[in-house]
């Protein structure tokens, strides 16, 4: 018997019941006997040499466990890519909020006072706070030239193209930092014992990243480090690399004190000290034909990485590859770099570089349309990538994608043409201006380039004597639906009901390394491996003659029971195999950047209020081709949530920096949009399949972060006629642009609508 419709059905979330009833256990719900609480003493300046540390009066320091860099048994770094970030600063600090000392105490409220009683003397050094300052190299704060990474993509002959151009269109675009704002702050518990080594329970996305970092920090063999993911209250990339830091801290305190140690940040510490989205600057110079076709161009994309390299090179890579958008570039040169500044390192955040470079591309397309004198719709239509053409990295689009049709449908769904006309008429009077804007874009699923090959992911499935199959992956659930979708895939592969499949808690002593839970790779790539591993179980049972085709769950259970009675256990593993036709050249940055792209056209409708200079998004259409929708409710949830987060990125979320420190590290003053600020987000899917993904799925988690910001700013320009090139676009910015003549002393007339 085959159970139908598990794929494509909105089955209940695996952990949904526990979350709704409060039974789910997050790290702060957990306590171990004798546990201490830990806290972090952080730098108060952006850059300098640590001269002296004083432990102030009023605190009985005998009660506290104190850890400094000297207590680190292995290498003082957070192992990731370049290993340049110390776990604890010892001699120099390179950004505000850099960890210097760790304190532990049995009584949590006693920590704050102790942290404040530590004072640190510095010889401060000049610091850099913007991309421009870093480029000027007035002082060198990292490596030889303040640059973490460069990429160069070259296709065709750009230098020859300028003289053939009817128009040369230039533009400069900026995006700001953005805080992930997961509901649950970063937190871990660590335990240490000399025999078993380090164990960490935490709120995290990538158990094996933490595993690797702890091995290096403690100089321990693999089997003496164990990392367990607890229920995780949101992540959005913010728990990709940072958990390695806080896990290292708790583990060092645990080792020194001989007791388990919990560190859970409060919101202020989490916002000030942990990673944010990389601020960016993009410059476009584009050669365009008379009829609006892109002949070629140069794109310069630069991101601010903060003080240490961390993930900047990979964020840059994704931003680089997405910089040309969903268009055909016969000739292009893309020069990109990640530079150092003295801010806490910027890190992973949904979209991972693509929202930044795509913002520029999609704003620039509207600019090209204006210069050429055609509509934003037409300019896109004339330049869309088509099947058989190549991307900027010369990847041939093999799938059958028709962006023209996708665009047409999005315009219909949003009633674009009629609205455009109506708004133009209405905008002649009154104190509101309405506008409508579009963005067309793509998002590559899975690790960039050769990344998946290096990851070499391994996935397992294990059947019990009760006939329940357990999926074994290190892929983490943090709200996006990993548990549910992977169980659906396994159930479908096994022909079992969804209830007969479960998923193991990610625990490095139990699950194999299926790679990090990032890059929209889980459903597509890990899902495909889950499918193979599950099939392996079935094959083992059929090959040994215990099971025949068309079995019932009962028969499956009986077969499992019998197999386990003779063989002890029934497990099956599947390892990633790179598709033979996917080739990538890391040197030249050329080739198949991603096994699959998801494609989308978004339409935003806005109102600009001329009384308050605020922008409201009134309606939002999100249409995307995603291969296959595995779970409609979860898929729609991903798009809705992503669009909401991107509206925040575009119009609300502004990190106020002062000397590298976030000044508005509270939700009162760091404004994310709430329900009353969001429009109806209307989500539509197209499903063309994908040979590289489970059941034809492509990654969709990050996609919705890419399109809203440019669509909204395009709509604001449509409404006001003013070209904004920088986000977040706040009412204060609109005001300055719309009313440059405003003078607090003499107010010019602006009286309208008076009878």
């Amino acid at each position, binding site marked *: 018997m085959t159970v139908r419709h598990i794929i494509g059905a909105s089955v209940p979330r695996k952990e949904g019941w526990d979350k709704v009833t409060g039974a789910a256990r997050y790290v702060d719900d957990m306590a171990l006997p004798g546990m201490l609480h830990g806290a972090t003493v952080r730098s108060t300046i952006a850059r300098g040499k640590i001269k002296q540390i004083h432990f102030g009066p009023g605190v009985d320091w005998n009660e506290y466990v104190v850890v400094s860099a000297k207590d680190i048994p292995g290498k003082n770094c957070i192992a990731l890519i370049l290993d340049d970030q110390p776990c604890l600063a010892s001699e120099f600090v390179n950004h505000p909020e850099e960890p210097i000392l760790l304190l532990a105490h049995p009584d949590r409220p006693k920590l704050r006072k102790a942290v404040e009683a530590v004072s640190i003397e510095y010889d401060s050094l000049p610091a850099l706070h913007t991309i421009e300052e870093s480029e000027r190299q007035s002082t060198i704060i990292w490596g030889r030239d303040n640059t973490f990474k460069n990429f160069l993509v070259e296709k065709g002959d750009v230098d020859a193209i300028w003289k053939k151009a009817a128009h040369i269109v230039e533009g400069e675009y900026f995006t700001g930092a953005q805080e992930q704002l997961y509901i649950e702050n970063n937190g871990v518990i660590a335990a240490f014992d000399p025999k078993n080594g380090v164990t960490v329970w935490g709120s995290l996305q990538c158990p094996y990243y933490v595993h690797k970092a702890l091995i290096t920090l403690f100089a321990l063999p693999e089997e003496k480090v164990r990392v367990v993911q607890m229920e995780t209250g949101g992540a959005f990339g913010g728990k990709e690399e940072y958990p390695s830091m806080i896990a290292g801290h708790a583990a060092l305190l645990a080792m020194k004190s001989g007791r388990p140690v919990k560190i859970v940040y409060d919101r202020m510490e989490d916002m000030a000290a942990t990673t944010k989205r990389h601020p960016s600057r993009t410059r476009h110079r584009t050669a365009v034909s008379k009829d609006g076709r892109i002949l070629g161009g140069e794109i310069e994309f630069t991101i601010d990485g903060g003080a240490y390299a961390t993930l900047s090179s990979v964020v840059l890579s994704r931003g680089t590859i997405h910089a040309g958008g969903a268009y055909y570039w016969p000739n292009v040169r893309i020069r990109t770099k990640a530079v150092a500044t003295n801010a806490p390192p910027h890190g992973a955040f949904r979209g991972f570089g693509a929202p930044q470079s795509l913002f520029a591309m999609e704003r620039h397309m509207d600019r090209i349309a204006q210069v050429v004198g055609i509509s934003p719709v037409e300019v896109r239509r004339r330049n869309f990538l088509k099947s058989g053409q190549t991307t900027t990295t010369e990847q041939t689009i093999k799938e059958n994608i028709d962006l023209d049709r996708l665009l047409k449908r999005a315009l219909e769904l949003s009633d674009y043409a009629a609205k455009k006309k109506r708004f133009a008429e209405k905008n002649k009077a009154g104190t509101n201006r309405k506008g409508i804007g579009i963005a067309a874009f793509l998002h590559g699923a899975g690790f960039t380039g050769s990344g998946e090959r290096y990851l070499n992911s391994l996935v397992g499935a294990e059947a019990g004597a009760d006939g329940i199959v357990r999926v074994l992956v290190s892929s983490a659930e943090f709200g996006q639906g990993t548990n549910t979708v992977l169980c659906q895939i396994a159930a479908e592969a096994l022909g079992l009901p969804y209830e007969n499949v479960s998923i193991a808690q990610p625990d490095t002593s139990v699950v194999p390394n299926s790679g990090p839970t990032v890059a929209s790779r889980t459903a597509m790539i890990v899902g495909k491996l889950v499918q193979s591993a599950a099939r392996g179980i079935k094959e083992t049972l059929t090959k040994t003659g215990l099971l025949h085709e068309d079995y019932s769950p009962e028969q499956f259970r009986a077969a499992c029971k019998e197999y386990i009675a003779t063989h002890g256990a029934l497990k099956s593993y599947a390892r990633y195999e790179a598709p033979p036709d996917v080739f990538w050249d890391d040197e030249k940055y050329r080739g198949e950047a991603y096994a699959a792209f998801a494609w989308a056209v978004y339409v935003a409708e806005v109102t600009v209020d001329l009384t308050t200079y605020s922008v409201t998004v009134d309606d939002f259409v999100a249409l995307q081709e995603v291969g296959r929708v595995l779970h409609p409710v979860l898929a729609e949830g991903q798009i809705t949530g992503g669009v909401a987060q991107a509206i925040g990125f575009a119009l609300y979320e502004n990190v106020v920096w002062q000397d590298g420190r976030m000044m508005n590290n509270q939700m009162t003053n760091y404004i994310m949009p709430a329900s009353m600020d969001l429009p109806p987000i209307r989500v539509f899917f197209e499903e063309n399949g994908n040979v590289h993904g489970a059941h034809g799925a492509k990654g969709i988690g990050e996609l919705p972060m890419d399109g809203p910001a440019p669509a909204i700013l395009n709509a604001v320009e449509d409404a006001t006629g003013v070209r904004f090139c920088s986000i977040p676009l706040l009412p204060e910015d609109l*005001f300055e642009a719309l009313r440059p003549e405003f003078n607090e002393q003499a107010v010019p007339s602006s009286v309208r609508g008076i009878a």
Partner: protein
Amino acid sequence: MRADPADYRLVSPGNLLGALSLLASEPAQWLPIAGGTDVMVLYSAGKLTNRNLIDIWNIPELRQIEVFPDRISIGAACTYTVLRQHEIVSREFSLLATAASWTGGIANQNRGTLGGNIANASPAADSLPALLVYDAVLTLISVRGERRVPYRTFHTGYKQTILAADELILNISLPRRFSKYFSHARKVGARNAQAISKVCLAALGQVANGAIRDVRLALGSVAPVPLRLNETEKMLTGKEIEPSLIDAARKSVLKEIRPIDDIRSTARYRSAVACNLVTEFLAKLAAEGAAA
């Protein structure tokens, strides 16, 4: 949470005399806590310097609303939810009911009190402009006795008030003579709910025979204290609303306000929006007058 609860003491006398005696017993040592929606924010950030707290949430005299023929008297510890649900408040003092509806979310409105908003004395507080235009009178009480003061004299500087260390705000009294006025309120925050105002306006006006008979304007977040626009009101009274008058009003508003740049906005933005809000009000008032 950044405070150590062991450092704090909370006493809940449950009656007015008990609370006042305690306040008087050790001068400036005790801090009243009503809904706690301001106090607990400081506490949790580890910034609450007062270590001794008196709970005044459960004092009956502070929780009642009394309606008299000529005025309404609102106990200082009445919550926003109570204000929003009160028939006379929502009918005759819509600016206050509206401000109450802006003040945080439902949870905050269930705890936050009008007296707390006044005593906390933030220039960005949302209900204070309404109290200014309604000519509120405060009753302050201590073991020394009661005094009645016009609310407009209450704030003396940024976060400074005439409230003595041993005093509580007992009630807020509003004269019932504005129900015929045209009223208009608008809050401009960084988002549509749960936001601290960048500018907020409470305005009342009456037009007779094409001219402004009476006008009352107050703004939040544009000065160290909630600000009544006395000069602008004077300038507008008796005049017909036309573009040149609105221009003059905008100029006058700019002379009266003293906004600053801070983490939430800029002085220039606040100035422009303050003018726009007054313009919007006058336009609506004119339309109202024309319709009447």
